[in-house]
C-alpha cells in the first residue's frame, strides 16, 4: 500500500508544490536538518552568464557526434539554441552528488522506497553501486525532488546547473575547455560503475564543485522543452509551466557509461521522470543562508 501512495496523484501534487519552493523545509534538529548540515555547500554568486550554444558551435558538436558514431540527432544539439544571457540570483549547490549514505537516511526517516533498477530490483543489493560515498542511483525525478525538499532544498534548475558546470566564463567542461581524460571524470565505462564522489578533483569547477561531468547524470528541476531557450525569461528561468507529471525532465552531465560527447556541460538530455537507471542521480541547491 505504501508503494501506491508514492505513485498517487496526491503525492505528485505535494511534490510539485514543494518544487515551487512554496513550502517544505527541514526542521532544526531533525534528521533532515542533520543531513542538510552534513552536505558540503558551494556558494554561487548572483550574476549573468551565457547559457546555451551558438549555431556554429552546434554545427561543430553535431559533426563531432557523427564522427563518433553517435545516434544523437541534430535536434538534441539544436535544443541548446539560442544562446542567451541569463541572470541568476545567488544560491548554494552541493559540492558532490547526493550519496547512498545521505539517501539512506532519507529512506529510513520517510519510509520512501529504496533505489531500484529498471525492473524494480534493489540497486543497493549491487555491491558495485551501494557504497556509502557513491552517488545514489536508481531514483526517479520524484524521489530526487522529495529528498531535496526533505532537507529544505531543491533540485537545481537547468540554468543553475549549467551556470555551475560552465562557470562564469562558459567553459565547455567543468574544468575548462580541455577534453575529458582519465583524471577529470568517470566516463566511457572505464570503471564499470559509479565511483566515490569527489574522486576526480582535477575535474572540479573553478568554484570547487565536483563530478559535474560523468559519474551520474543529474536530475534537474525543469521539464524538458527543446524550445525553452527561445521563450524563457532572462531572470532565474525554470521550465515548470503546464507541468505534466509524466513529462520528461532534464538530466545533465553524462555518466560513467556515456562517452565524451555527453560530458559537455551545455548538452541537454531528458529522462522520463518515473524511470530509474543505474547512472542517473542528482545533487541539490538551496537559497543562500541570509535569504532562507
Amino acid at each position, binding site marked *: 500500500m505504501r508503494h501506491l501512495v508514492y505513485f498517487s496523484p496526491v503525492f505528485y501534487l505535494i511534490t510539485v508544490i514543494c518544487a515551487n519552493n512554496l513550502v517544505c523545509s527541514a526542521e532544526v534538529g531533525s534528521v533532515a536538518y542533520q543531513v542538510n548540515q552534513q552536505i558540503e555547500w558551494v556558494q554561487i554568486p548572483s550574476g549573468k552568464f551565457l547559457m546555451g550554444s551558438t549555431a556554429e558551435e552546434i554545427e561543430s558538436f553535431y559533426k563531432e557526434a557523427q*564522427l563518433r*558514431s553517435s545516434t544523437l540527432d541534430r535536434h538534441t544539439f539544436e535544443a541548446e539554441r539560442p544562446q542567451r544571457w541569463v541572470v541568476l540570483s545567488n544560491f548554494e549547490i552541493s559540492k558532490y552528488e547526493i550519496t547512498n549514505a545521505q539517501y539512506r537516511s532519507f529512506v529510513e526517516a520517510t519510509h520512501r522506497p529504496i533505489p531500484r533498477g529498471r525492473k524494480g530490483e534493489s540497486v543497493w543489493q549491487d555491491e558495485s553501486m551501494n557504497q556509502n560515498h557513491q552517488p545514489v542511483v536508481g531514483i526517479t525525478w520524484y524521489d530526487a525532488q522529495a529528498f531535496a525538499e526533505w532537507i529544505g532544498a531543491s533540485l537545481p534548475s537547468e540554468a543553475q546547473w549549467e551556470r555551475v558546470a560552465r562557470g562564469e566564463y562558459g567553459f565547455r567542461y567543468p574544468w575548462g575547455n580541455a*577534453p575529458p581524460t*582519465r583524471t577529470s571524470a568517470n566516463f*566511457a*565505462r572505464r570503471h*564499470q560503475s559509479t565511483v566515490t564522489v569527489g574522486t576526480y578533483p582535477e575535474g572540479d569547477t573553478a568554484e570547487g564543485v565536483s563530478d559535474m561531468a560523468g559519474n551520474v547524470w543529474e536530475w534537474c528541476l525543469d521539464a524538458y522543452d527543446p524550445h525553452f531557450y527561445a521563450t524563457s525569461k532572462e531572470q532565474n528561468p525554470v521550465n515548470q509551466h503546464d507541468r505534466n507529471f509524466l513529462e520528461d525532465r532534464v538530466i545533465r552531465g553524462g555518466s560513467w*557509461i556515456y*562517452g565524451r560527447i555527453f560530458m559537455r556541460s551545455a548538452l541537454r538530455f531528458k529522462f522520463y521522470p518515473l524511470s530509474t537507471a543505474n547512472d542517473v542521480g542528482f545533487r541539490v541547491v538551496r537559497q543562500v543562508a541570509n535569504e532562507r
Partner: protein
Amino acid sequence: MNASSGKVWFSTAALIFYPLICCGATTYFRDVTADLGIDFKHENDFSPERRLVETMGAGGALLDYDQDGDLDLYLAQGNILNNPRSDLQNRLFRNDGHRFIDVTETAKVGNTGYAMGAVSADYNGDGFPDLYITNLGNNILYKNNGDGTFTDATKMASIESHLLSTSAAFGDLDLDGDLDLYVCNYVEYELDKDVPCYFGRMRIYCGPNQYHGISDILYRNNGNGTFTDITKAAGIFEPTTRGLGVVLTDVNSDGLPDIYVANDMTHNTLFINQGDGTFKEEGRIRGCAYNDDGISNGSMGVDSGDYDNDGDLDLWVTNFSEEANCLMVNNGQGYFDDLTFDLGLAEPSFQPLAFGTRFLDYDNNGWSDLVIGNGHIMDNVNLINQLMTYAQSLQLFHNHNGVFEEITNGTGFSPGGYVVRGLMTGDYDNDGDVDLFLCQSNRPLVVLRNEIGSKSSWLTIKLVSGGANTAGIGSKVSVTTGELTQTREVLNGASYLSGNDMRLSFGLSKAEVIDKIEIRWSNGQFQTLTDVASRQILVVYQKME
C-alpha cells in the same frame, strides 16, 4: 632589373620549385611489385553466398629465413573452400638483393590450407626464424631447418589448433628465456553453417554479432620444442571476444611484456603481466577497452609505438567503417586516454574500413608516423552506400611533433585504392627506410618502396640476444640524438595477420652521430652504446652476464 627585384624572383622561384628541389620530384613511395618479380594474387574464393571468411584475409610475414642479411617474404594464401587446389598455397620468396625468388617448393612451406596470417620468430632458439601460420582450421608451425628448408612441426610441438585463428605473436611472456605464442581466435565458425544476411533482397556479408566469439590461446614454450596451452591457467581465457589483432608490448614499463588484443565488436583486452606467469585483464580500468565514447568498435589492426617520444608506448587500433580509429596515449604507467580526435586522426579515418597498420617514421625525421591499410569487406558496398567503395585509399599520417596530418595525396599510393588486409613494414632493400607490403583480399600483393626516407639520416638496429629469444623480442631500445630520445620495442606480430621486420628503424633527421643507445634486453639486462655512427644497420650482440 635591380638587385632587389632579383631577390624577389629568386624567392618566388624557390617557392614554385621547392617540391622539386626538396624531394627530387619523387613521390614518397613507388610500386615496385613487378620490378621485384613478385607475382602473388590472393584467392579468397569469393562466392555469391558471401561467407564470412572471404572478407578476412590474408597477411604474411617478413623474415630473414636464410640469414643472409635481407628480408624474405612469406605470404598467406586462401584457397577454394570446398575444393582446395594444390596450386593455391602459401608462398615463400627469397630476397636475392634485387628480386624476390619463389622458393616455396624447395623450402617446403607451401601449405594449402585457407590461410589467414603468418608470423615468424625463432621459437627453438637455433638462430633461424621459424614460421607460424594461422588458418581456417589447422594452424601450422614450420620449423626452419637452417638449410633453406622447413619442417612441419605442428604436431611435434603439440600446438595443433583447429579454430578460426587470425593474428598471432611470439614473445617471452613468462621471462624464462624462450618464446611463447599468443594466437587470436575469431569466432565459432563452420563453413557449411555460415549465416545468410541480406540488405533488402541483396545477399551481403554478416556482421560479427551474428557469430559467437571464442577465446584466444596462449601457448607456453616448454623449452624442448613443445608447447603447452596455458590459456586458462594464465588468466587469458575470455570466451566471448573476437580476436583479430595482437601486440605483445610492455605498456606499464615494468619490463614484463603485456598483451593487447584488438577484438571485433567486443571490448579490446589488455592483459597485464603479473610476473608470475599469469595475467590480469585490465583493459577497462586502464582506458583501452573502449574508445572515449565508451563504445566497443569493430577493431582489426593494432600496433604500439612511442608516437610522442616521451618514452612510453602508446596503442593504436584500426576500426571498421564509420568508426574512427583509436590512438590511446600512455600516461607512463600504462593508463590510457583516447586522444584520436585531438591529434587529427579521427575525421580522416571515419569513412574507411581499416585493417593492417603500423607506426613508422617514413621520412626518418625522428617522429613515428602512421600508415593505415583500408578496404571494405563488402565488394558491393557502393550499392548500399554510394559514398563508400570496396577499394579504399592507403592512408599516411605525418607526425608533426605529436600531432598528425594526413598526407596521402602525393605519396605515390594508387589513386584507385587497395583492398588491404595484412600490412607489413620492413626495409627490404636495406637502404635505411621502411617499405610497405600490402596484402590485398582477392587481389595481388603490392610492394611500395620508400623513396625518400634514406635522404634523412637513419639507424637500423638488429638485436641478437645471447639466449633462446635470439632476436631479442620484447627488448626496448632508446636512441638519443641531441634533445630527442626515441624509444622502440622489438615487436613480433602487430598490424593485422602480419609479421613485420623486427629490426628497429630510427629516423635521425640531420643527426649523423647518435649520442647514446640504451638497450633494455628482454631478460632485464641493460646495455649502453655511445657515439655511434648513423646510416648503418647496427647489429648489437647481447653481452650475457
